[in-house]
């Protein structure tokens, strides 16, 4: 057996090396083409470790560098392997699709792509809080470069909100991590997992990561960023990065010791709320990418709900694998869907391929909506089942509503996609193949370890049917699109900001103060000058002979007589 522990560092240092390489101008034109190669070590590790994992499912890879930063640890276990897999696949496919980015600044795109790739892979293997924080920040902040890449007004606006929330989240996370580290006296995440600490520290960590996940209210960056970013970037944003929050929750919070927390009941409810919130708002979108973004929020609801009950269970590290599996499922499909937008948009002239493309689009939509015998349906059913013994339960109807709304979203998505304006671009065969493979993988992967049964077909079909019926009914009876600008709350916040900046009265007051200051300064200078002149003239008093002699006499008196009395 080979020792792959060194690869734990390589998988994310390698892309960083690529990024550094881009500093050399000669390499820049090849930036985009090199992207897939950045995943080479990760692929090797996946392959090598995959075999080891097959041999012994509890094996863990470990690497310790006590002197780097404040002590660096990396490891890879089963859960990490699942996450590595989804990251690898989605990043890989996205890397191949990056050839769509063809402007002069493509190398810059490549740079940020590599940086956030490094972060994204790194956080999977991070086993100490600082490494996690480091890689997480690297990913988040570098992704800003992806969001802003196209530079048009909406991209800039999206990037602004993105960075604002990313930094806010980062800092919450930082303070939370510091608090935990200080209390536990270590940054080793294996200890963190087993030990709880002060509530507000945990809350800050939770909050910091919630920004990434897109928990309602903190989600506002998401529907702006996803549509603004280039297609492959949207795929990784939605497919991989958004899930970093989930693994972060898992790694940084005391996952093994959560069961007794009284606020845990919130998590499932929050999950459902997120599902419905994302879904409802998503339905009001016209841009298919924005719609997908809201769909991602909605899907995150499932993960939130999932991790909520995982924490309650007796064996969270086992149960977490289900959540991981769902994340895997969502990653493949959501990445596929985002890329589908690209294929539809860019390849419309390639008429020969279009039926296939549309076929894939519909297949993906169905997979997400929970087509029976597909990963979505199987996983949801399985999760419901294993969560049955959890303390805090939700009414089934709510979960059903969540599924229904996903179905509705997908219907809406397909309709919106069909109306998309097209911008023909040359077809990239390797990319197309990779996309088809992705879809194929999404279709078949569950059968590797799950046996679908016919028992639940009816209930599995239920949400999809309801969605179709509801959509048709709406079409017939109401036939109206409710519009909502992407980013919902952002609009109000921006309006408020403009209002504040326009407070003329305030500005005038400020100006007046400044003028007064200048005036006062001039005036005091004048006074000083006059004063100096006076001082200078005052010496005449002493120059006067009679005064001089008076002083002389007075002093005589003073010295002489002061002793007498």
């Amino acid at each position: 057996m080979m020792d792959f522990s060194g690869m734990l560092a390589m998988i994310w240092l390698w892309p960083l090396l690529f990024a550094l390489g881009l500093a050399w101008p000669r390499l820049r034109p090849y930036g985009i083409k090199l992207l897939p190669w950045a995943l080479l070590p990760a692929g090797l590790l996946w392959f090598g470790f995959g075999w080891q994992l097959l041999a012994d499912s509890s094996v863990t890879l470990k690497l310790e560098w006590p002197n780097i930063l404040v002590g660096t640890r990396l490891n890879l276990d089963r859960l990490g392997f699942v996450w590595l897999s989804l990251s690898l696949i989605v990043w890989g496919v996205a890397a191949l699709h990056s050839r769509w980015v063809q402007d002069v600044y493509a190398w810059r795109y490549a740079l940020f792509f590599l940086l956030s790739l490094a972060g994204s892979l790194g956080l999977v293997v991070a086993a100490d809080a600082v490494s996690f924080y480091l890689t997480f920040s690297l990913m988040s902040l570098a992704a800003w470069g992806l969001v802003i890449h196209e530079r048009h007004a909406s991209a800039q606006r999206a990037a602004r909100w993105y960075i604002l929330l990313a930094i806010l989240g980062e800092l919450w996370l930082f303070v939370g991590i510091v608090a935990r580290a200080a209390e536990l006296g270590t940054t080793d995440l294996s200890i963190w997992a087993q030990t709880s600490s002060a509530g507000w520290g945990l809350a800050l960590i939770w909050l910091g990561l919630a920004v990434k996940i897109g928990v309602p209210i903190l989600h506002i960056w998401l529907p702006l960023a996803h549509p603004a970013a280039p297609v492959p970037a949207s795929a990784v944003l939605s497919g991989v990065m958004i899930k970093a929050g989930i693994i972060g929750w898992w790694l940084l919070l005391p996952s093994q010791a959560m069961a007794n927390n009284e606020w845990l009941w919130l998590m499932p409810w929050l999950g459902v709320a997120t599902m419905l919130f994302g879904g409802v708002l998503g339905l009001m979108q016209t841009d298919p990418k924005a719609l997908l973004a809201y769909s991602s929020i909605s899907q995150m609801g499932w993960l939130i709900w999932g991790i909520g009950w995982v924490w309650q269970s007796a064996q969270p590290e086992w149960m977490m694998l289900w959540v991981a599996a769902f994340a895997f499922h969502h990653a493949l499909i959501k990445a596929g869907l985002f890329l589908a937008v690209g294929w539809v948009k860019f390849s419309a002239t390639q008429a020969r391929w279009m039926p296939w493309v549309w076929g894939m689009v519909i297949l993906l939509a169905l997979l997400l909506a929970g087509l029976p015998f597909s990963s979505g349906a199987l996983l949801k059913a399985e999760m419901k089942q294993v969560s049955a013994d959890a303390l805090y339960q939700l009414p089934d109807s709510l979960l059903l509503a969540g599924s229904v709304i996903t179905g509705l979203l997908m219907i809406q998505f397909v309709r919106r996609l069909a109306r998309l304006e097209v911008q023909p671009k040359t077809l990239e065969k390797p990319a197309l193949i990779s996309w088809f493979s992705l879809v194929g993988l999404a279709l078949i992967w569950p059968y590797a370890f799950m046996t679908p049964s016919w028992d639940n077909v009816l209930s599995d079909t239920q949400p999809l049917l309801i969605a179709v019926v509801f959509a048709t009914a709406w079409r017939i009876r109401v036939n109206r699109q409710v519009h909502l600008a992407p980013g919902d709350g952002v609009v109000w916040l921006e309006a408020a900001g403009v209002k504040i900046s326009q407070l003329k009265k305030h500005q005038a007051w400020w100006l007046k103060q400044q003028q007064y200051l200048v005036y006062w300064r001039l005036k005091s200078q004048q006074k000083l000058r006059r004063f100096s002149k006076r001082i200078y003239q005052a010496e005449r008093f002493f120059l006067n002979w009679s005064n001089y002699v008076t002083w002389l006499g007075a002093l005589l008196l003073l010295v002489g007589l002061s002793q007498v009395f």
Partner: protein
Amino acid sequence: MLVFDGLLALLILGLAWRATSSRDLFESIVVFIALGLMIALAWVRLSAPDAALAEAAIGSGLAGALLLATWSRIEPQTDDRVRAFSWSWALVFSGLAVGLLLAFAQIPADGQGMMDEVQAHIPQAGVAHPVTAVLLNFRAWDTALELAVLAWAWFAQQALNRDHTPRYQALDGEVLQTFAKWLTPLVLLVGAYLLWRGATEPGGAFQAGAVLAAGLVIYSLAYQHPWRAGRLNDWVWRLSWVGGFWLFVMIGLVGLAMGVGFMGYPPAQAGGLILLIEICATLSIAFLLAAMFSGHRDTETLASKSNKES
């Protein structure tokens, strides 16, 4: 005597006031000289004739000469800023007067000073008169320095008089010249007498020097720059200014070498040495005072000046 003392005190105060309050600079100077004289008188009353002599020579005579010399060089001016009278003045000085009176009331009336001590050492002093003994033996260093003061006063005046304007106009007239001719031997005689008398009675080098200086001045008033006629070498002339001081301190150093101490004489030779010193000092004083009055014209300076101009 009390009346005299009181008058003296009032006079001193009055003169001092006048000296400082006068608007006319010249008047101030004159009053200042008078003030110095009155103070010298006060010294006499305080039975300190040595101090009185010094005051008269230096505080009044010399300082006055310097003031006048300077006054003649600056443009005529009156000081407008001097106030004739002010309450602060009145207040301060009446307070001061009261304080002074109170203090003087405390001075013991029978102050004999060091007289007993001086008398006791007269036999070793080489001279009989106590004042001379004090001046030229016991406190010879003071006197030597006073000679230096006199010399430096002249040097200072010389330094100031850079444009070399004559201080006076020669007075033409037979009478004066004849008078001067007759007077000169007489002056020399009186000077020598005063000098000699100093050994036993009040008098001495300063007085003698002053008399000789007066003679010189009259002579030079009658014959402008008699010493310029090549009769006296410039060098000799200059040597006469510093010679007294030189001799004095050289003898003082000899004392140091002989073990008597700096500024001391071997008792046996004291009388002779003192006489030698007195003679030289008298000459020095005479020439210095005369030079101060007449404003010696330095040929070298003139020469260098004209060189520069051309």
